[in-house]
């Protein structure tokens, strides 16, 4: 039984890898096309300088840090149910970070020069901090997984887990600060952004984790013991509510400043696609509906969990689109008190229509994370192994 418990079936494994690699290749093809022609062939422009690739990249990086939460609850707070899930949580963190960084780096104007980001540091730049934080997470989580997999290293597992816990907090603070330190644009420049990103990372990371875990169990024909299932779905519910709360606080504080009123009006009411994605995508489909699915006493089963997790991920992408693109299209208020007009987008809402290559690059990043996860799960023991005796009853497993 252990064997079937660990192994994805051979043929479907190769099919999944090939499928994922194809998507990665398509993404790389899109990169080649965009680099050959320049960003002129994308929807990005001088007003919307970060487009669809950044929505995917920031989702992946944020979720990569959040998914480590599962490991932290196990190692730092000593919960055995989560401890059994720490290796998978570490693996997902690594693969999503790789996918996110791939998208981020390949969208640079000069991706051929990405090495410069490692040879020239400007220490006042949040981006340069991230150029240290991201590889650092790779190293720390890599060591953490090693200490968990290799029994001779077991003694260091606790300290490695604690380091990963601290590092990932700093990393998500760094991701939030990319925007938080931007005084220029109306949407950003808020201290709430760093904690908001941390709580969002919890929710998105756990959603990805539950999705992957449920899929693995499903393929292996086993079911998660209901107590664990309940515990984890309830936690996801709490994180979703937390993320929703922070997003509300962010908008409430903005509404309090009269100079931000017009911007909030745009994002929340009359900004075309943005209010639709915010209310419909993030709030309703990405938060309220998954909350109902997870917390309703009649629901909350395996299928409800998978659906809820998918909805949370969808809501996350909607929210990032509103946050990043919506924040960019809104014109800068360079001359407060004046209405402005120019040939360079002053005083008007910018236009952005994501192009196909941008999407394909983003999908390519997701696919890289997917392929790496599938391979990792296949060659190493990442499947959560519960010591069922300490749980309410082993009978729940088949």
């Amino acid at each position, binding site marked *: 039984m252990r064997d079937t418990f660990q192994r994805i079936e051979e043929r479907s494994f190769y099919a999944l890898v090939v499928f994922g690699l194809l998507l990665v290749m398509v993404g790389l093809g899109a990169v080649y096309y965009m680099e050959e*022609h*320049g960003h002129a062939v994308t929807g990005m422009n001088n*007003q919307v300088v970060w487009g669809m690739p950044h929505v995917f990249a920031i989702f992946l990086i944020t979720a990569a840090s959040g998914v480590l939460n599962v490991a932290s609850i196990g190692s730092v707070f000593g919960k055995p149910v989560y401890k059994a899930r720490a290796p998978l949580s570490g693996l997902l963190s690594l693969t999503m970070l790789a996918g996110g960084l791939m998208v981020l780096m390949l969208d640079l104007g000069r991706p051929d020069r990405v090495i410069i980001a490692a040879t020239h540091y400007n220490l006042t730049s949040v981006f*340069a901090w991230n150029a240290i934080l991201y590889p650092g997470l790779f190293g720390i989580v890599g060591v953490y997984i090693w200490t968990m997999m290799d029994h001779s290293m077991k003694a260091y597992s606790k300290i490695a887990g604690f380091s990963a816990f601290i590092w990932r907090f700093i990393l998500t603070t760094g991701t939030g600060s990319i925007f938080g330190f931007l005084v220029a644009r109306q949407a950003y420049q808020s201290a709430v952004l760093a904690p908001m990103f941390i709580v969002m990372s919890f929710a998105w990371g756990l959603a990805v984790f539950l999705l992957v875990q449920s899929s693995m169990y499903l393929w292996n024909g086993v079911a998660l013991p209901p107590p664990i299932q309940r515990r984890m779905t309830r936690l996801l519910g709490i994180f979703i509510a937390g993320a929703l709360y922070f997003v509300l606080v962010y908008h409430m504080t903005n509404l309090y400043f009269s100079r931000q009123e017009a911007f909030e009006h745009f994002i929340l009411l009359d900004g075309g696609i943005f209010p639709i994605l915010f209310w419909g995508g993030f709030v309703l489909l990405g938060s309220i509906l998954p909350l109902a699915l997870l917390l309703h006493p009649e629901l909350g089963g395996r299928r409800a969990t998978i659906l809820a997790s998918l909805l949370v991920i969808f809501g996350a992408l909607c929210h990032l689109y509103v946050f990043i693109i919506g924040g960019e299209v809104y014109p800068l208020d360079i001359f407060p008190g*004046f209405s402005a007009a120019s040939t*360079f987008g002053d005083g008007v809402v910018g236009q952005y229509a994501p192009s196909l290559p941008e999407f394909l690059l983003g999908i390519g990043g997701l696919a890289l994370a997917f392929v790496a996860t599938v391979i990792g799960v296949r060659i190493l023991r990442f499947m959560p192994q519960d010591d069922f005796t300490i749980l309410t009853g082993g009978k729940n497993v088949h």
Partner: protein
Amino acid sequence: MSDKTPNQSRRAFVATAGAAAAGVMIAPGVHLIEVASARPAGEAASRTVRWGMLVDVTKCQEGCTACVSACNKENALETALPQNQAPQWIRKVDLKDKSTGRALSLPMMCQHCEKPPCVDVCPTGASFKRADGIVLVDRHICIGCRYCMMACPYKARSFVHETLENQNPEVPRGKGCVEACTMCVHRVDKGQQPACVQACGAEGHAAILFGDLNDGASEIAKRIRSVATSQVRADLQLNPGVRYQGI
């Protein structure tokens, strides 16, 4: 060193050429009271100098784009790209006071801040401020991340969205890097005025005054001392090198 003598004579020539260029500049005779002298070859930009501009909004005409055309020509910015992807180092902004209805028009470009946010956020240090206050992008180490464009409160920067071939040899620029007004650093170093300043003067408006803010005897420093001027987004305390009069 066998090349020492020709090298020195070349330097001497350069100095004369610089002076000659400055003389030519005065010839149009339009308000060019102050013409900086060329920095001698081999000498670095000085910390004692701070180049700046003063825009007299009351003299700037709505509909006149002489400064913009001159900039586009000088820096070879013309392109077939759509307006929102085309680079614009200087643009004319038409403003209307929301409460009083007063209309005005002014040129907007890189403000060459003393504390530039673009320099703070640049991960590689490609965005930098030269000793004499001119904020530039070192395209040799710009990776095209566009973080500076997100950070600039003046929307002064553009991204090069396409392959370029017709660059001015003195203004290198290319695909995948971020760029902005250089205050025509290649001209300033020769002792000439930025192209926009010259064009505005030639048009007869002379709304832009260029000079050394640190030199108390310069025309720009005197004007800033004697008339009310303002900094755009002064609340951010970036201390821009471009000042406005009459906003």
